[in-house]
């Protein structure tokens, strides 16, 4: 039966080439636009650390003045002062914790007559690598003792190791950064979470790139006056070089909390800390927050507005395309009223007619899907050549590949419903009489 419908559908599609082409093309354009934007949206709103994101939490406290504070509505700022960050770290209430700030450093070339260059870096504490599962190619991270002592040690990314040492094991070697010598203790494998969740609101890009090039102890960076990328001060500053005491926020703190009980404990601990600071007069707001990684990404609206608008636009466009296909299918099937009348008169049931037209719509959907996939690849190719920071990420993966066909066939079947229903409602007698 299905084979027969298939044959009928193909014949009918072949008979009205222009109409068929219009249907397939309009469906394909809609699907192409949809898949392109959905792919980008999915990439950008994806989980940067799927194996661990549920255990990573981002504590926030609020040292701002009372002015402008509305209890329960004002969210605490995205970053922390050094004093608060160090208190949380030294309290050891989580399995692992790290304080993070971004920086950049001038790296001296290893060979003579090459120019120095700037690389992005992270100032952080020893547990950073374990906390975020950053994989090591050679060596390891530094120790808590290095943190305390401000040792001039550094972990570099694989691509920087490639650039400076041709990819050889460089652990123990020295690089010169900002005119100071640093001993390499570890080299990372390629590691570039998308989005760069640990650096949101610290200044710098959220997406794209090969990841940060170097990682060094926070205290070392402070001793050497390597300023963070972003500083926000809530009071008059008297000495900005002394960041440890300045009323400025510039650190993000991350905590690994393995279960619900640990999260609840940490929440209480954080709330108590804020209350205690208010009692001591250092804080005037006792608002705190402890979002998990995905919650933090949502809160910061990390996916650019333009990407979400584009996706909305593409869905609107697909709707128009489906509507268009409905119209064209309907036109076709009403034109074939006589054929339907003959088939019905010869004993075909309404169900058979319905099936025949749905098969025809399904074929349009499949072909539209294949063509739509081409359009999507074209669209993603276009996006890869855009100046946006996420451009290089835009690639179709297997699940989106399959999703394309699901969307295409679904869209065409939905589009086929009305025409097929109209077709099977055709009464045979008047059609036969007319001829």
């Amino acid at each position: 039966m299905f084979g027969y419908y298939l044959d009928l559908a193909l014949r009918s599609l072949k008979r009205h080439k222009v109409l068929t082409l219009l249907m397939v093309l309009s469906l394909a354009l809609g699907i192409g636009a949809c898949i392109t934007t959905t792919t980008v949206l999915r990439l950008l709103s994806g989980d940067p650390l799927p194996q661990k994101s549920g255990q990573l939490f981002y504590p926030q406290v609020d040292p701002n003045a009372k002015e402008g504070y509305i209890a329960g509505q004002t969210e605490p700022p995205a970053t922390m002062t050094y004093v608060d960050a160090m208190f949380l770290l030294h309290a050891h209430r989580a399995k692992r914790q790290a304080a993070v700030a971004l920086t950049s450093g001038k790296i001296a070339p290893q060979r003579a007559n090459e120019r120095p260059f700037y690389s992005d870096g992270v100032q952080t504490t020893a547990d950073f690598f374990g906390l975020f599962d950053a994989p090591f190619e050679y060596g390891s991270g530094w120790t808590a003792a290095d943190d305390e002592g401000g040792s001039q040690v550094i972990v570099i990314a694989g691509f920087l190791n490639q650039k400076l040492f041709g990819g050889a094991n460089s652990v123990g070697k020295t690089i010169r950064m900002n005119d100071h010598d640093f001993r390499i203790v570890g080299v990372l494998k390629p590691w570039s979470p998308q989005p760069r969740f640990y650096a949101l609101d610290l200044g710098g890009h959220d997406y794209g790139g090969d990841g940060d090039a170097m990682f060094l102890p926070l205290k070392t960076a402070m001793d050497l006056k390597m300023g963070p990328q972003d500083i926000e001060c809530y009071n008059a500053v008297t000495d900005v070089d002394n960041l440890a005491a300045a009323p400025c926020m510039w650190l993000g703190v991350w905590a690994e909390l393995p279960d619900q009980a640990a999260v609840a404990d940490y929440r209480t601990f954080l709330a108590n800390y804020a209350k205690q600071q208010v009692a001591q007069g250092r804080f005037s707001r006792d608002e705190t927050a402890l979002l998990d990684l995905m919650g933090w990404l949502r809160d910061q609206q990390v996916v650019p507005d333009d990407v979400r608008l584009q996706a909305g636009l593409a869905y609107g466009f697909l709707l128009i395309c489906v509507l268009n296909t409905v119209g064209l299918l309907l036109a076709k099937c009403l034109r074939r009223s006589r054929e339907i009348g003959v088939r019905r008169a010869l004993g075909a049931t309404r169900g058979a007619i319905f099936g025949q037209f749905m098969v025809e719509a399904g074929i349009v959907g499949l072909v539209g899907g294949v063509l739509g996939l081409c359009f999507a690849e074209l669209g993603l190719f276009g996006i890869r050549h855009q100046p946006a920071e996420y451009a290089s990420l835009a690639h179709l993966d297997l699940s989106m590949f399959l999703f394309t066909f699901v969307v295409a066939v679904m869209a065409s079947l939905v589009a086929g419903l009305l025409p097929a229903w109209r077709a099977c409602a055709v009464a045979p007698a008047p059609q036969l009489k007319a001829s």
Partner: protein
Amino acid sequence: MEIRPILTSLRKHRIPAALIVLEIALACAVLCNAVFMIGQRVADIHWPNAIDEQGISVVTVNGADPKLAVSDIPRNLVALRGIAGATAVAAATSMPLDHNGALSDFTATPNGKTTVNTSIYFLGSGGEQALGLHLLEGRFFNAEEYADSGSKDFNSTGHVVLITQSDAQRLWPGQSALGKTLYTNDTGWTVIGVVADVLAQDPRFSGPGGRYSSVFFPLHPDGVMGDYVLRSAPQDRARVVREAAQLLGKLESGAVVDGTTYADMRTDYFADTSSMVWMLVLVCVVMLAVTAFGIVGLTSFWVGQRRQQIGIRRAVGASRGHIMQYFQTENFLLSAAGVVLGTALADGINLYLMRYYEITRMPWYYLPVSAVALWAIGQLAVLGPALRAAAVPPVVATRSA
């Protein structure tokens, strides 16, 4: 043209007619909002900026030894002045649209509060001329003010400041800003001049309030200055920036040196905005094409179905023009219904977007303009099928279908 027979005939084809109306409505709604977004973004790209954008080049020197700045910056400036075609040269801390926000709160009273982010620019001697600042009131900095002004904790240790026209009007509405004192916390600076509006370092981050909120402080040679600003005739700028970058590369061998023309800097800042504009334009064009083809397809079917009717009308005296008019009027009516529905939908979408995105209220004139556009497209799409209908010979009436 008689409308009633058209309506009667449409009533018999409710579903196809409804489909066309719906398609036009959706297209109208999407078009309105997309065109509005395009308009907003194009306006962003053209934000005016009262510096000599076409003549300026910027060479950024990063990682030079700050301890040597006092002697190295004057030496570098002397060398840069030697470049043929460079009419003014100065050092500065940052440039409009360089993404490197140095923001602070400035108020007209000590320890005041404001939500406006003001961009801070420090200029080395001659910076006003190198940037091409446009003085509206007062004067520029003098040599003495340059000599005794430093920079500490993000603030100027000097006593004078230049502000933009927007800030002057915002802080001292209805009065002259000259001689007034501008405060951050309890530190004050005397306003000695008002310049035409200069953009912030990162106006998108600063928001509409901070877009043209910029202050200029004088600064003696200091390690925080990493930008060398060169001004030349627009046709010389490519050569000037190349030569300047080479020169500074030699003089500052330990630093990282990058040169770019200001025109490129501006293009760079708005690169993703303009790519979004092109994407929106593409979607609009393809969407209109799809809608038009939908109309062509459905109307052609319609014409095909009514060949005999058309023949009869022709046989009883209707001219080709009458037949054409029939289909055109029919399309006009369908478009009208679609456009009415579409403008309501467009307004709804705009209200929804305003809630969740940084989008303002769509001005009313977008609605009639896109309505007219869709009418025009409908008429254009129906032209082919209508011509085919008009070509149906009267003799068709005599043949049984």
